[in-house]
Each structure stands twice: as C-alpha cells, then as structure tokens.
C-alpha cells in the first residue's frame, strides 16, 4: 500500500465520518418528518459512500474491493427504495407537511392532490 493511496483513504474516512455526524445533527435539528428525510439522505449517500470508498483504497485491487463495490451498489439501490417505501407510506397515511411548505398541495391538507 503506497502512502498516496493511504492518504486518500484517510481523507475519505474522515470526510465520511464528518458527513455521518452532520446527517445525525440534521436528524435532530430538522422540524418535521419531511425535512428529516433529507438529513437522512446525507448519512445514507455521502457518509456510506465516502467510508466505503476509503475502505476500497485500503483494500487495493483485491477481491475485498470487489465485495465493497457490490455492498456500495446494493446500498445505493436499496437505500432509496426503502426510503421511497417509507415516504410513500407516510404520504398515504397523511403525515402533515410543515406550515411553511408551499407548492402543489395546500399546507395541512393531505388530499392526494389529483386536482
């Protein structure tokens, strides 16, 4: 393992850790469910991605690296799918949007907005 690859892996692991914690802080700071989902997105994309890339640089060109890439691909595929299942269920259930939410559906009303 060369020093350069070590340095990159190092930076990725540190940055990934920082983004994980930032996402966690967002999870606590955001006012309601819908804004919290975006904080969750940070830990699930940037945190996971950078930490696994950091480990890939540690592993070098081995079978371990291939397995890490496959875990990364699976998490990036399954993460949004599970997320979408949660959002869709919450939307159907009628979790209220924040009062400051603007857009196609009037705030507080949870009709399905099919005009």
């Amino acid at each position: 393992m060369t020093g350069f690859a070590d340095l990159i892996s190092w930076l990725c692991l540190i940055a990934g850790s920082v983004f994980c914690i930032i996402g966690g802080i967002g999870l606590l700071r955001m006012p309601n469910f819908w804004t919290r989902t975006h904080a969750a997105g940070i830990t699930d994309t940037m945190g996971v991605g950078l930490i696994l890339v950091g480990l890939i640089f540690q592993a070098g060109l081995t079978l371990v690296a291939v397995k890490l890439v496959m875990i990364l691909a699976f998490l990036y595929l399954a993460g949004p799918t599970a997320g979408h299942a949660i959002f869709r269920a919450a939307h159907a259930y009628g979790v209220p949007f924040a009062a400051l939410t603007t857009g196609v559906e009037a705030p507080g009303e949870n009709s399905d907005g099919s005009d």
Partner: protein
Amino acid sequence: MLDFSMFEVTMVAILVTMLIALIAAVRGPTVFDRILAINIFGTKTVLLIAVSGFLTGRPEWLDLALVYALVNFIGTVAVLKFVRFGNLARDDEEVGS
C-alpha cells in the same frame, strides 16, 4: 500506525451517529420518523461491521455486512407493511386508513 487509529476514529464517528439515530427513534413523534431513524441505524451497522473487519484485519466480515444490509432492507419494508396493513400476509385491507 496511523492506519489503525484511523479505523478507530471512523468507528467512533459511526457509533455517535448510531446513538443520534437511536435518540431520533425514541423522540419520534410519528412512527415513520422512528422507522426512518432505525433504517439509518441499520445502514450504519453495515458500515460498522465493514470498518471493524478492517480494524481487526479480517475483511471476510464483509460477508456479514452484506447480509446485514439485506436483512435491514427487508426488515424496513416488513415493518412498514405491518404498520400500514396490520399483518404481513395480506395487502388488501388497510387499518384505519
């Protein structure tokens, strides 16, 4: 030698995130907030297993990490289905709509 402390720092950060996710899960307030937080907790567990595999020099733990990722995904969907429909076998009636 910096290598090893590196993995430990990462693991501490992941554990802190898991703790925050647990706090968020306890805080709620809706059941969907809790499911979201537990989904994050599960994803972080996958990372924790992967990093600890490198920390102890046994990268074969990655197999466990992948299995945990699969279980976490299916578990999240199963809990959602249970919350929405009240059971896991049928999907033709909603509870309380």
